[in-house]
């Protein structure tokens, strides 16, 4: 299972804009590179990333072969209520990874 690093503030005031950072371990093999024998290395990338805040989708990204290894996303949301942020990455060859983070809103 790929490792993921998530940075979400543990506490926020209601109405605050909070910054969310996610980093996931993935080679992001483009599918355009030849190996030592001149054969094309098959594409192996993450294709989708979704973040949900208490079940509601707040951020989505489609990834393409030009994106660097270990994709890093930084985005913001408005802290509305305490709960869980869930993160899900899916990709080629059945790749799937998920993480969650708690946030307390006062």
């Amino acid at each position, binding site marked *: 299972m790929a490792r993921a*690093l998530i*940075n979400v503030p543990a506490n926020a005031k209601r109405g605050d804009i909070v910054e969310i950072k996610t980093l996931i371990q993935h080679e*992001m093999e483009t599918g355009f590179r030849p190996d030592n024998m001149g054969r094309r290395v098959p594409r192996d990338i993450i294709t989708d990333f979704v973040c949900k805040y208490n079940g509601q989708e707040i951020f989505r990204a489609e990834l393409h072969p030009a994106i660097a*290894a*270990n994709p*890093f996303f930084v985005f913001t949301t408005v802290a509305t209520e305490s709960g869980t942020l869930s993160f899900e990455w899916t990709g080629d060859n059945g790749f799937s990874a998920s993480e969650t983070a708690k946030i307390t809103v006062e």
Partner: protein
Amino acid sequence: MIWRPLVVLAAGALGAGAIAAEIPLGERKSGYEFMGRDTRAMQDDDTSNPAMFWVLDGETMWKRKAGTADKSCADCHGDAAASMKGVAVRYPAFDAARGRPVGLEERINICRADQQKATPFAFEGKELLALAAFVGRQSRGMPITIPEDERLKPHIEAGRAMFNQRQGQINLSCAQCHDDNWGQKLAGAPIPQGHATGYPLYRLEWQGLGSLQRRLRNCLFGMRAVTYPLGAPDYVDLELFLMWRARGMPLETPAVRP
């Protein structure tokens, strides 16, 4: 396009005289200070530093039993936070049994072969980099301290000689860029002073973690000079000289570089 800066650089170096002047201790700067704001931010926060994946993998391997001795690193060394603190800042270190200095990666492999009775890892492989990054991480922020050891002196001098030796088709020495022309541009990128303060490090160009030897091979290749096989004693001497040259500077392992 790539020719012009090189030619200008070579001419500048000739004008400055053939003997490179060492950078005074107080004027030394880590490669970190030559980076842009975004790349610095990646290194500053462990949750945005992709090298941390290798550190986390290394932590798992530290506890995993291996080899016919069925021992893990932790079985002998215990908690790495205590036992490995301050280790990476004094490598390459002299190995009495071999009669020469060995780098941290080689030291890990010696331990693996002698104590765990396991097959040594390949240089530049994921496993060895992960363990080296994990061990290095325990000394982050500590000053680089190559011990005063008479046995190391000839190797530091050999490394210094290699650093000042003009080589390759371009006939450049390390010193011409990193002592004489640091802060200037080479093909649009700033030339750092070449202090090995953050290895193994995540290089954006590599899209992965790499050792100082990989970086040295990159430089030699760019000079169109002969590269040595990974683990060659020539690299260890140069590594030792570079760590001695960076003495007192804080270790940044695992650093991020463009």
